[in-house]
């Protein structure tokens, strides 16, 4: 008997800044619209566990789309004429998210974004607060420097492997191996220079420290950050959340890619937030669903034992040929 995931994938044409983008998205469910934003250099597959989980899709219309240049979404058709390398800007990113939601005619969607998708929530709250009903900002803060580096896009360096490996340590060593390595694989799938170009937004063009305290607070923001996130540490998220009115901050034992590196743990952490969001019962949402979230289980990695040693030379410069 065949087994299928309940996800359906489609392409929608999104107009943004005078160009048309053939944009891939996957969805499941018919409840409150929830648009999931992937991290830098990857695509919507990072949310496959959530989009396929009835605890989510029985309450939300789960939608994960691939940004232009990512996954199955194409670059603009004239990309080969660009005179600069790919760089994601705050303006384009925010405008594209809004344009995508309009293209699908979504009413007051919830945005759940991770890493750069979490940071952009601060811009969405500042410029587009009336478009959304709530924001879930995973691994997010108002300033995350240090990642826009040439090693991530250089002809002498294997971009796929270095991108995937440089982000591997952002995950908790206690997240299940199979999910950590799937996350690695998703990172290794990106186009040349796209991870680095996204990090232009993440580390250079998104210093929101001046405007976090200007947010009105009408749009609730839920910050969730894992302890192993070395790009956006728990302290960085806490400092940001302290400045944002009508926000909550949750720190949990996990890493930078909670949706893909440990979906069961993530469900435990995010479920109370989802219940609060459903309780908002926004009039523009369709009525119906009630919450019925179950808690997941966590796994642990197993490491091996150590090997043998032999006595070392006792004098002079010690050298061992192996």
């Amino acid at each position: 008997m065949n087994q299928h995931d309940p996800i359906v994938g489609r392409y929608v044409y999104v107009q943004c800044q005078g160009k048309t983008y053939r944009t891939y998205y996957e969805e499941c469910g018919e409840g409150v619209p929830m648009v999931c934003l992937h991290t830098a250099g990857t695509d919507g597959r990072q949310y496959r566990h959530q989009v396929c989980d009835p605890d989510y899709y029985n309450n939300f219309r789960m939608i994960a789309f691939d940004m232009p240049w990512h996954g199955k979404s194409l670059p603009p058709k004239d990309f080969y004429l660009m005179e600069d390398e790919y760089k994601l800007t705050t303006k384009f990113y925010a405008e594209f998210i809004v344009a995508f939601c309009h293209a699908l005619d979504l009413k007051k969607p919830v945005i759940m974004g991770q890493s750069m998708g979490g940071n952009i929530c601060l811009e969405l709250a500042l410029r587009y607060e009336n478009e959304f009903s709530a924001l879930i900002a995973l691994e997010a803060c108002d300033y995350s420097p240090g990642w826009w580096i040439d090693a991530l896009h250089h002809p002498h360096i294997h971009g796929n492997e270095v991108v995937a490996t440089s982000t591997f340590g952002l995950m908790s060593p206690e997240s299940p191996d199979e999910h950590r390595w799937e996350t690695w694989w998703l990172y290794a799938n990106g186009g040349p220079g796209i991870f680095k170009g996204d990090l232009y937004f993440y580390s250079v063009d998104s210093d929101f420290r001046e405007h976090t305290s200007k947010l009105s607070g009408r749009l609730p923001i839920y910050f969730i950050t894992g302890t192993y996130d070395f790009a956006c540490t728990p302290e960085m998220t806490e400092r940001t959340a302290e400045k944002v009115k009508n926000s909550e901050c949750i720190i949990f034992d996990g890493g930078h890619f909670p949706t893909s590196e440990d979906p069961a743990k993530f469900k435990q952490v995010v479920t109370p937030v989802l219940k609060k969001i459903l309780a908002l019962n926004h009039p523009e949402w369709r009525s119906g669903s009630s919450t019925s979230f179950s808690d997941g289980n966590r796994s642990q990695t197993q490491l091996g034992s150590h090997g043998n040693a032999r006595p070392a030379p006792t004098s002079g410069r010690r050298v061992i040929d192996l």
Partner: protein
Amino acid sequence: MSRMGGRKAFDLEWVERWARQVNEDRRLPVIGRFFSGRFVLGIDDTDYLIEVNKGKVQKIAEGLAPNDFGFEFALRASSVTWGKFAQQVPPPMFNDIWAMAHPLHRHLRIDGNAMTFWQNLRALTHMLSLMRKA
């Protein structure tokens, strides 16, 4: 076994135990087959030269000497930092080389030719993770 009350001593014997773990690993001959060169593992004030050929450690040496003809890159950190990195379950911010070296944290310094470091990051990351077995 050079351990100090359960805490690793990070002497040449420990480096050798780690190197033998590297050489027994079954994945490094594939993911590290293009990783050849010399790098330095700096622990407190001691530099250990690590000579790698096709993903296997050929030689380790305590301290540097003129006849080494230098090295490509060096990873230098305190024994406290390496101690955290080498724990079975390392604590946050110490579980990964790039995490420790990242400008936000600077627990570890990358000296020398960082190009070689980045080119071999996948094999190197796996190699160093085997410290948790040493």
